[in-house]
């Protein structure tokens, strides 16, 4: 088949009168490695996501001693024991600051996600989830879904400096956004396109008609912002186009129940509960192709997780708590690192519990979990922990402990982008620039 440029295709589709984008649309852009097929004979899509937790790890409780497959599981990795063959641990990959001041909890996190260290939230490039969403997210209702579990809309997904893609903080609101108005049950018996959806389409097309005149009068930066506006408008147009198409049936899919109201706070049990509910909703949304890209924030980068009644947050503890001489680490801080990995286990469970083809949803996902630092006490950006879960539809070799030995952490970002089909061979800036993927990840 002739190679098809995604943007050109999109332009063609949107420029033409008929804005109907069916499921086969995506297949043009897959590289053919995907092996999984649904019972319906359709190829199952590959999804990408990030899962973030703040304030790093307790090295002695986290980093495996053995490399390669069947790595050992230190205490904090116990929650992933049953999924070990589908989770890789990447240790010892560094952020090189190249003289950029290390602003605690910000610089390492954004350098890992953009390939360029910055001293504040003004990212110098888009985060890799956005680049991947540009490649695989176009044919779905939502280009990506962002979620934050601790009651505040933290997000580390940026297209440009200045406006992170905001997170949903409430499971109820997340439910309504995905399964409320505009949701089409893929297994509904009949399908009738809604005239109101067509009206909304023509209204949006009237709004975007004036684009050129508007752009003409703007400076460079403002033109970029207006581009972002029109990208957002186009996403809504795509959502509407999909609503005019009968959805492809999905095996075993049932619309989830509306979650009950629960407290949203930074207290650890509330966060764990919010995370559990959101993970289930997300898994259902992925299963019925509402989105192919997501970003889950379990805790913020300067972790504000707390225990009920405690005066001190996880972040404060990492700085103020004395090291327990017997254990060799900060005991209270370690509690939160342990709980974070428990949540990661819950998240993987949620993906693995959805049957898909002859495997599970997890097999058709690639999820990059990472933190903002390795040791929060010193804000170390050397060896920021990264875990990769899922098999990306058979495109990725999983279940290994891979040691970076001080290599730039951009090798991870480059590798996952290539796995997801982003056409790049170099990524990152200055000493973080790399063209070297991590071969152990590739099939």
């Amino acid at each position, binding site marked *: 088949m002739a190679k098809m440029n995604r943007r050109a295709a999109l332009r063609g589709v949107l420029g033409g009168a008929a804005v109907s984008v069916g499921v086969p649309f995506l297949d043009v852009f897959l590289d053919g490695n995907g092996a999984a097929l649904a019972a319906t004979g359709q190829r199952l899509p590959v999804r990408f996501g990030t899962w973030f937790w703040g304030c790093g790890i307790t090295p002695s409780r986290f980093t495996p001693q053995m490399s390669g497959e069947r790595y050992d599981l230190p205490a904090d990795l116990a929650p992933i024991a049953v999924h070990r063959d589908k989770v890789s641990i990447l240790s010892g990959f560094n952020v090189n600051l190249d003289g950029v001041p290390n602003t605690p909890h910000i610089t390492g996190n954004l350098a890992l996600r953009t390939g360029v260290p910055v001293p504040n939230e003004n990212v110098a490039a888009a985060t890799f989830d956005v680049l991947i969403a540009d490649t695989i997210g176009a044919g779905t209702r939502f280009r990506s879904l962002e979620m934050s579990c601790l009651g505040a809309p933290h997000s580390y997904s940026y297209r440009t400096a200045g406006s992170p893609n905001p997170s949903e903080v409430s499971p109820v609101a997340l439910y309504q956004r995905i399964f409320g108005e505009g949701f089409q049950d893929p297994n509904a018996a009949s399908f009738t396109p809604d005239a109101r959806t067509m009206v909304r389409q023509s209204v949006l097309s009237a709004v975007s008609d004036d684009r050129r005149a508007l752009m003409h009068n703007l400076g460079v930066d403002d033109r970029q912002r207006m581009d972002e*506006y029109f990208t957002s408008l186009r996403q*809504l147009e795509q959502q509407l186009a999909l609503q005019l198409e009968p959805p492809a049936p999905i095996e075993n899919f049932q619309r989830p129940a509306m979650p009950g109201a629960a407290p949203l706070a930074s207290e650890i049990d509330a966060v764990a509960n919010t995370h559990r509910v959101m993970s289930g909703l997300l898994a259902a949304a992925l299963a019925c192709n509402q989105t192919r890209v997501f970003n889950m924030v379990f805790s913020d980068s300067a972790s504000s997780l707390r225990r009920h009644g405690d*005066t001190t947050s996880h972040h404060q503890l990492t700085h103020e708590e004395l090291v327990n001489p017997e254990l060799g680490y900060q005991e209270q801080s370690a509690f939160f690192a342990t709980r974070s990995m428990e949540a990661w286990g819950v998240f993987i469970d949620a993906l693995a519990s959805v049957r898909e083809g002859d495997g599970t949803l997890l097999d058709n996902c690639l999820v990059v979990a990472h933190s903002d630092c390795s040791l929060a006490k010193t804000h170390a950006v050397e060896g920021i922990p990264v875990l990769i879960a899922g098999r990306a539809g058979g495109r990725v070799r999983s279940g290994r402990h891979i040691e970076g030995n001080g290599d730039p952490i951009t090798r991870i970002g480059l590798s996952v982008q290539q796995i997801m089909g982003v056409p790049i061979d170099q990524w990152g800036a200055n000493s973080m620039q790399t063209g070297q993927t991590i071969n152990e990840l590739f099939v």
Partner: protein
Amino acid sequence: MKRVPLASLLAVIGAVLVCFVGGLGFAQAERSEEPLSTGAPTNLRRLTEAQYRASVNDIFGEVSLTGRFERGLRQDRLIAVGASQQGLSPFSFEQYDVMARGVAAQITAPDRRGALPCAPQNVERFDAACARMIVSSYGERLFRRPLTNAETQRYVGAARAAHQRLGDFYGGVSAAISGLMVAPEFLFRVERTEADPNLRGGIRLDAYSKAVRLSYFLTNSTPDDELLRAAGAGELHTSHGLARQADRLISSDGFETGVRAFFWDMLGFDGFADLTKDAVIYPAFNSRVAADAEEQTLRTIVTHLIRDDGDYRDLFTTRQTHLTRALGIVYRLPVTPRTGWETTEYPEDSGRAGIITDISFLALHSHPGRSSPTIRGMSVREVFLCQTVPPPPPDVDFSVVQDSSNTSLPTARMRLQAHATQPACASCHRLMDPLGLPLENFDGVGTYRARENGAPIDTSGSINNLNFTSAGGLGQALHDTPQTSRCLVNNMYRYAVGRNAVSGERDWMNYLNGRFETSGYRVPELMRTIATSNAFYAVTAESEGGDSTPGGGQ
């Protein structure tokens, strides 16, 4: 035509001349003091949540908004500056779309459609004339300028297409209105320039763009019909016409909203959205207290600055305040009315004076479970003195200096004292802690305490080598230091133009500081000076940048 006696006609002309010349003379005298200022390129400001809400209410009357708003971007300490840099995510667009359709449905619903400018002759057939009237009247308010013919046609076309599909005229115009409401011309303030007839080769903001700057600055909302009329009539290009509109807005109810919006931004009250306090440690603190605390400080500010025409600096020393029952519990002060607000004073022996002893400041700049002299001291510098404190060095082991469980160091001062022994810490902490320690009599939510962990609290502190021993002393020092008022002027101007001042505005900023001092530090007067200045509206072409030679302001 009616005959008019010559004498009275001459008298009228004479009066007009006197007015005109008098007005001009006054304006010139005032203007002659204002130094040249370059201005900067136009900017594209996204409406903030408050501006969106106020604009929609001003245009359509009371409507309920059902969507959610993306968080405002705070840049260089102001959301007003961040709004010139913030993009618009797919999430936000979705939410704007939900709200737009909600508003359009409400105002075209059977119970409200009588308020539309016209009704169709026949609901069955598309009434293009009526649709055009609705599109152009709401379009002008939403875009803050008359629509072009092409724009009107496009939105009327959308209404027609929708009518045909839905078989309903109101469904059609509702669709067009929701389109206008998600258009970039509504969600962003798009500024336009034109050739400046008074300066060859120069450019100026067009009249509608001036109206928009003026209106959002003074009232935090969209230009009203009278301001749009004045813009259309060219009155905003004359100093007299501009002053008349500015004075009209300053005496309107919207002005208080405008002053509140500025202080809400400067004081970082968006932080209340994230504020949590541990319910076990601070059982009296809840969302009611948080909302009232925010309102308390804003009430004190507008009462003092607008109603009492007070000196800005006195906000740091005044004991006048406003309380509710919910606040009274945290303040441990009796409040008479069962519901609503009481205008009152902090008792002389309460240790409180000035807005930095309000719980809005104390609670916002503390940890969830305890106070923080460091955060409070840093916030005093950043919020009220416009100074930036560098972030902590990344590789410091804090556990050496701050072990909260160490009973031999019961107070924060003792724990922080250890900072002085480490030079890397001391260089920044001596900027922060001496401004926060005087507030240590107030715990993490702002309740008074004499002791911490049983030990008496020492509230001495200093700023610029000026020593004091209490919160009151800190307030007095903020009152006295010239940086406080310069910071206010700096924030106010940046808030007005949505960007930092550029080097070509240095003389103007000095002038503005002088005017503020001369006026006795009157904030409304400062806002009037900005609103009626040349500098506020001056623009340069994009390529020239902010460092170009003066020219745009002439």
